[in-house]
């Protein structure tokens, strides 16, 4: 059982379910247990009606037609379906996909699979703010390019890509535009059609809905986009995704979308103030703190900070009984390599190992943030007292000039 006093600042990993969402779901476990594909009895009709209603709630949030929502098990499936499904469906047009080095693993690994299947993939670099270069994107387009895949907002840094301009470039060249918008939908206004996004994956559990359900938006008109199903079976979801629909999950997802539509702007306003407070307090009370990624173009509730000469995982251990955050230090991985996202921003491996991501959410209070400031400040000071490289830095030793024994 998780301690109630534990402060959760890891909302980019997953958000807790809103109680209003749970309330909406419960009848679909008890009174209405039907399969939405059962056409011949009231159990099925009720389930189908509930799914249709949720589809409308979700479509309303992102300003699309309900028929353009394909339910999935989550964003990883949505990413895979969009990328592999377009690659297969548009094979006659070309085999080239353009994406970015800081995309989520679900996109990068799907792209690697596509390369094994004979596709060609260009992985764009980002600058030190985490943003792609639009000229580089345009220069990468060939007559074989079928798809551009750029995530709306980055999970680690919260950096938002120049979506509008990317959409214009895709439009100009007649190329499909897919976005993994997992971290953006339900948190900031996301309107794929006005941007020229033709396919968009997102998930319920990042917007206070249940886990295990997500959606892929697929544009139906101008252009009519189709993807080849990656899951074969009963032909659900207009043939693009077979499998019995997760009715309670979808109902919860719909409710979460409805709440987000009403509350996300005020949530974002409140959370950006708390985020700024957190950032400023740590900046003021500690030396050598760095913000990772663009400060102007990022999500309102996220900050990714590096505390120089402190290792992130060790730092988290000083307060993880009290505060939950995440680190770009991948000390548990066999490779010992830190976050590839932060490395792509040009951070040295040492600063990447020193990073902590704070992601606030709907249930974060000012008191939570105040306690986090306290815990972080004392944690960083404790770890620096223990850190030989902090001592060297304070003594004016040039740490880069030391010949380290790589292990």
């Amino acid at each position, binding site marked *: 059982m998780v301690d109630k006093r534990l402060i959760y600042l890891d909302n980019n990993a997953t958000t807790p379910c809103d109680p209003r969402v749970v309330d909406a779901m419960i009848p679909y476990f008890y009174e209405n247990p039907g399969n939405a594909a059962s056409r011949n009895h009231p159990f099925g009709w009720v389930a189908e009606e509930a799914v249709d209603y949720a589809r409308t709630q979700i479509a309303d949030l992102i300003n699309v037609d309900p028929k353009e929502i394909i339910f999935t098990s989550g964003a990883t499936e949505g990413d895979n379906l969009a990328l592999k499904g377009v690659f297969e469906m548009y094979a006659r047009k070309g085999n080239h996909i353009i994406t970015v080095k800081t995309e989520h693993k679900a996109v990068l690994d799907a792209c690697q699979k596509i390369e094994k299947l004979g596709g060609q993939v260009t992985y764009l670099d980002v600058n030190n703010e985490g943003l792609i270069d639009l000229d580089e994107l345009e220069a990468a387009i060939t007559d074989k390019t079928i798809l551009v895949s750029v995530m709306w907002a980055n999970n680690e840094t919260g950096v938002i890509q120049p979506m509008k301009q990317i959409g214009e470039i895709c439009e100009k060249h007649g190329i499909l535009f897919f976005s993994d918008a997992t971290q953006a939908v339900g948190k900031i206004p996301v309107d794929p059609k006005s941007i020229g996004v033709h396919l968009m994956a997102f998930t319920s559990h990042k917007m206070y809905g249940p886990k295990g359900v997500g959606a892929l938006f697929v544009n139906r008109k101008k252009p009519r986009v189709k993807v080849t199903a990656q899951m074969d079976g009963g032909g659900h979801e207009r043939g693009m995704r077979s499998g019995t629909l997760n009715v309670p999950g979808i109902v919860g997802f719909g409710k979460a979308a409805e709440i987000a539509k009403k509350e996300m702007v005020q949530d974002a306003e409140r959370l950006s103030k708390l985020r700024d407070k957190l950032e400023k307090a740590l900046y003021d009370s500690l030396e050598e703190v760095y913000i990772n990624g663009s400060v102007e173009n990022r999500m309102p509730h996220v900050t990714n900070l590096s505390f120089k000469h402190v290792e992130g995982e*060790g730092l988290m251990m000083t307060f993880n009984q009290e505060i939950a955050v995440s680190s770009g230090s991948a000390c548990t991985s066999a490779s010992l390599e830190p976050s590839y996202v932060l490395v792509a921003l040009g951070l040295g491996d040492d600063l990447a190992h020193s990073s902590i991501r704070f992601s606030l959410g709907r249930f974060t209070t000012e008191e939570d943030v105040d306690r986090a400031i306290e815990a972080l400040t004392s944690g960083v000071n404790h770890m620096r007292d223990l850190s030989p490289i902090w001592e060297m830095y304070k003594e004016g030793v040039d740490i880069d000039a030391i010949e380290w024994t790589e292990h």
Partner: protein
Amino acid sequence: MAYSEKLLDHFKNPRNVGTLDKGNNKVGTGLVGAPECGDVMRLQIEVDDESGTIKDAKFKTFGCGSAIASSSLATEWLKGKSIDEALEIDNMEIVEELALPPVKIHCSVLAEDAIKAAIKDYQEKNGLEVSPKTESSHH
């Protein structure tokens, strides 16, 4: 991942944190790891000339909880040991004592390397024959 009580204790209440005077001939310093890898350990020993035993040991570590606990434990074990005894400390003993999970075994390896590097530094400083055992058996 849940850590052992012993590991958490060494992490929260690290023993022998600090710095010995590098200029002192009786002090040997081992600095191992690299900031890029997310682990740097500095382990120092002070040897008592008459008895030939390690009378003090200090460390500072940049790294995860397991790295800090491994080096803290190493300093505890070093105190009172002769050089030869200290060279017998095997990383797997640290793994067992702290119940390090497999992904953290490299932390114990680093601690063993730090011990050997500190002894080597002490022996070189004092014109002693460098023990062959100071060469790391890992990597």
